[in-house]
């Protein structure tokens, strides 16, 4: 600590200047008088000679003030340097304290920094598209449900042509193409995009160019743009790829460009090809599968564009009532569309890890309190030497910040590990996982949190430690003890909130797993074949699937097999949702017909999926071409449209003009949750493939393996290639697909559980520390009591009981906090209320038990006190 002379105030500076100038003027005046001038004349002359007095005063004062500022700053920096050096020395002498504090803070800082990186990557990081805030996605609502659907081609064309506020507008159609001639034949995910798609996205290619207008004319040149991944994987990153021809679907396509690695719209596709739209497409209004994007016209606000789209949409509803009745159109800005769904969960997790940081700070503050008590003597000496309270507090805070900096550095290392773990285990539904990295934002955040934590933990102990350095030491210990009690109780409360949240989610998860899916995904594989072009003849196609069914049934390793136009869990199939009519019932107004999921199946399908029959019969071999047309409905459909009445024997038919065949309902099967545990069962009906007039050519094979899904998968591949050599298709395991639907929940639960357990551990450490300190501080008192006859066991019980009571108080507060905040989880809970008494009660009991164990261990030390030594000890 340096001795410093007090600085000069502005008033003092000005006074001294006055004195200096006065001296000069008087000296000059005296000189002139000595030369013979009259005193008044001399004074005037001296003044005139001097020059601009007030200007001189101003300028000199400015220089002096600046000098003061410089001096203060140098002194401050010098003090800081001294403090830091002193702190480093002191901390090295107390490695246990330093390590404990730094590691505790590292946990909190590392966790929060990692999660902030995730939040930044997914929600805040700028998208790789130019001015992404002005890109909007266009949606139409499903007339039956409230959900958002992708617009149909016809609606897209009209929207595009009529909208002034969104220009340009483009669409992307999902597809697939087979690449041959570059290694094994492989199917690549393809996006067929309309004109201006790349202009809307505003993404410049890495190599070459994107499409030119001439390439969108029907019959135009066959061109393709590759994704970075596809370019590297299938063409070895060949720098001369632009201009080369590759064979897609047996047609040579010229590669005109390669996109940058971060271009992933609409999804991580591999190829982009032009889609020329014709007037025929304008007539297709029922199929909703176009991803439509557009850019807001310059100067247009989102609200204005929304209004215009809604108005254009209203016109479309009027013009095409059959298809568009009840449909509304809306816009979602691209950033929100991409990340919006993850926002809630991510922010929740960030809040949870924030709790962990608070608990960690609580422990560090307790450590600091103990250290201040230790430092009393040193601080007293400094105060006696003239250090002001502010100066001492500054020194203590510097020490705290040095520890915090160490914790922060360790925390950043921890954050790097955690971010790696998040990237590895993140569910596929978490958008922009590749954007979750450690970057400048992580460091800025970590530095800010370190400062905040350091100041937060350190301020109170520093103030308390310097409050009254002459006061009685024991009195101060008692006050500190109470503060420490409050800290520990607070930590327990926070940890409890985390534990209850984790508990509620865990119960939800368990509840979900018990939900009956309606089918059995175990040991089953799915393989989707598109054979429209390979088997163009309708009769041959029907025969193909019949033979495939037979072939698979005879394969060892496969217990049952079938095929369907779309399977639950699989995204590869063609989900169809057409309107239908019930014969004999009152016909609804055109455009308001009910819709149900319509699946074309082979007879083996039901057994292969493990789909149970409820009434009547399943479809079988007798339902062939020429036989009466039949269908099988599920319970949901039967309940909804024939509630109570007899459904077997009723007839339904499609409401579209083309397909007016009527089916007789011959059976009712169980409901299926198509998208996993959290989805609801929809109305569905199944018709035989053999009776389909066009022998539907996109069918998903499902096979139940006798032993395992892998074996079944190989068997399916072999069987298909026997009948159709070289056909490309992907094999999916239904078990894995099901696990994928649960992955987001599992991920969130895993993270929350990790945070909750960390928080609990930290709180238990806090309790342990508190009891240890209490025992140490009250040694003398306990020695006296033991000497007077108290048994060690009694003392241990007392100490433990006190700590447990404290924990109980924290638990009660925690329960109330949890009750107030668990509402935030409501959207994520399934089958469990946010105030579930079982979870609350169980967590409270467990926490109490843990606290008891944590306090008992150090309390036992009280039993080993030697009364004589204790009474002689200090304090």
């Amino acid at each position, binding site marked *: 600590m340096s001795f410093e002379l007090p600085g000069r105030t502005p008033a003092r500076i000005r006074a001294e200047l006055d004195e200096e*100038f006065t*001296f*000069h003027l008087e*000296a000059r005046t005296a000189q002139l008088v000595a030369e013979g001038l009259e005193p008044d004349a001399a004074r005037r002359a001296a003044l005139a000679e*001097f020059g601009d*007095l007030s*200007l*001189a005063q101003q*300028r000199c004062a400015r220089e002096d003030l600046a000098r003061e500022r410089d001096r203060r700053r140098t002194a401050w920096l010098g003090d800081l340097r001294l403090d830091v050096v002193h702190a480093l020395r002191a901390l090295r002498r107390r490695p246990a304290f330093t390590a404990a504090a730094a590691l505790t803070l590292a946990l909190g800082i590392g966790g929060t920094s990692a999660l902030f990186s995730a939040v930044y990557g997914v929600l805040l990081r700028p998208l790789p598209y130019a001015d992404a805030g002005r890109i909007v996605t266009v949606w139409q609502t499903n007339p039956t449900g409230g959900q958002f659907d992708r617009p149909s081609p016809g609606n897209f064309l009209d929207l595009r042509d009529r909208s002034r506020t969104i220009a340009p507008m483009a669409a992307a159609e999902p597809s697939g193409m087979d690449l041959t001639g570059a290694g094994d034949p492989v199917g690549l995910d393809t996006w067929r995009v309309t004109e201006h798609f790349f202009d809307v996205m505003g993404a410049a290619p890495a190599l070459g160019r994107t499409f030119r207008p001439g390439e969108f004319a029907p019959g135009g040149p066959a061109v393709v743009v590759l994704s970075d991944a596809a370019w590297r994987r299938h063409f070895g990153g060949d720098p001369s790829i632009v201009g080369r021809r590759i064979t897609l679907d047996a047609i040579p396509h010229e590669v005109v460009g390669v996109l940058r690695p971060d271009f992933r719209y609409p999804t991580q596709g591999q190829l982009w090809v032009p889609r020329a739209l014709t007037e025929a497409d304008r007539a297709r209004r029922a199929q909703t599968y176009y991803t439509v994007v557009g850019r807001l016209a310059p100067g247009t606000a989102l609200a204005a564009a929304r209004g215009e789209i809604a108005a254009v949409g209203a016109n479309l509803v009027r013009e095409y009532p059959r298809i568009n009745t009840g449909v509304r159109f809306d816009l979602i800005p691209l950033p929100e569309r991409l990340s919006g769904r993850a926002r809630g969960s991510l922010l929740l997790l960030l809040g949870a890890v924030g709790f962990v940081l608070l608990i960690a700070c609580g422990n560090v503050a307790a450590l600091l309190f103990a250290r201040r008590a230790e430092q009393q003597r040193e601080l007293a000496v400094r105060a006696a030497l003239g250090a002001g309270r502010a100066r001492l507090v500054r020194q203590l805070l510097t020490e705290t910040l040095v520890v915090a900096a160490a914790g922060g550095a360790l925390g950043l290392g921890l954050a790097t590990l955690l971010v790696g773990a998040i990237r590895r285990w993140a569910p596929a539904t978490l958008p922009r996982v590749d954007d979750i990295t450690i970057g400048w934002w992580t460091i800025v955040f970590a530095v800010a949190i370190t400062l905040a934590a350091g100041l937060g933990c350190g301020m109170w102990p520093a103030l308390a430690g310097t409050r009254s350095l002459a006061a009685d030491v024991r009195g101060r210990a008692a006050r500190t003890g109470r503060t420490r009690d409050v800290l520990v109780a607070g930590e327990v409360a926070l940890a409890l909130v985390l534990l209850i949240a984790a508990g509620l989610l865990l119960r939800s998860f368990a509840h979900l797993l018990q939900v009956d899916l309606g089918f059995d995904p175990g040991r089953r594989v799915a393989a989707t074949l598109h054979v429209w072009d390979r088997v163009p003849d309708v009769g041959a196609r029907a025969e193909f699937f019949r033979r495939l069914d037979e072939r698979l049934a005879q394969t060892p390793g496969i217990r049952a097999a079938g095929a369907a136009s779309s399977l639950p869990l699989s995204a590869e199939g063609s989900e169809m949702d057409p309107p239908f009519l019930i014969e004999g019932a009152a016909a609804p107004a055109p455009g308001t017909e009910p819709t149900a999921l319509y699946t074309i199946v082979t007879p083996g399908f039901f057994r292969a999926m493990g789909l149970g029959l409820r009434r009547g019969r399943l479809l079988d071999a007798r339902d062939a071409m020429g036989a009466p047309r039949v269908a099988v409905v599920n319970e949901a459909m039967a309940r909804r449209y024939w509630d109570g009445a007899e459904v077997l024997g009723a007839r339904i038919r499609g409401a579209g003009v083309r397909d007016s065949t009527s089916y007789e309902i011959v059976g009712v099967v169980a409901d299926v949750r198509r998208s996993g545990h959290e989805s609801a069962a929809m109305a569905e009906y199944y018709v035989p493939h053999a009776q389909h007039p066009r022998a539907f050519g996109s069918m998903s094979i499902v096979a139940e393996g006798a032993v395992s899904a892998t074996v079944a998968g190989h068997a399916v591949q072999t069987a298909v290639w026997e009948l159709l050599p070289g056909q490309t298709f992907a094999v999916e395991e239904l078990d894995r697909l099901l696990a994928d639907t649960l992955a987001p929940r599992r991920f969130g639960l895993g993270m929350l559980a990790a945070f909750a357990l960390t928080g609990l551990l930290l709180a238990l450490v806090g309790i342990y520390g508190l009891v240890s300190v209490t025992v140490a501080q009250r040694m003398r008192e306990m020695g006296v009591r033991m000497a007077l006859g108290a048994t060690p066991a009694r003392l241990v019980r007392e100490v433990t009981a006190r700590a447990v009571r404290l924990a109980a108080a924290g638990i009660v507060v925690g329960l109330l906090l949890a009750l107030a905040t668990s509402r935030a989880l409501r959207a994520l809970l399934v089958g469990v209320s946010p105030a579930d008494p079982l979870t609350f009660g169980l967590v409270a009991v467990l926490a109490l038990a843990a606290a008891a164990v944590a306090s008992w261990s150090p309390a036992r030390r009280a039993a080993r006190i030697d009364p004589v030594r204790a009474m002689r000890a200090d304090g």
Partner: protein
Amino acid sequence: MAALELLQGTVDTLILKSLSWGPRHGFAVSRWIGDRSAGALGLEDAGLYQALHRLERRGAVTSSWGLSENNRRARYYRLTPAGRRQLQAETVTWRRYAEAVFLVLDARTAGS
């Protein structure tokens, strides 16, 4: 002859020189410069004091209050080591500059 006006940098050098024999107050510095230059250099006192305070801020001189010859409180300025070094360097530069100018101005013919 009218007093020559001084360039700013020169004032600093002159002040430093005047302090090189020991501490002086501002009035003494002003008188010494005037006497030494036989009145040719007209240095306004206002400018002189500004220069003194500026020099103090830059660390070339320091000041302290003391008693003058007739027991009045006056602010005395004193050279610091840094100021002494600055004086040496500036003196050398000034001499060289002046010699070079003289060489040119003393030329008798266009060629020599």
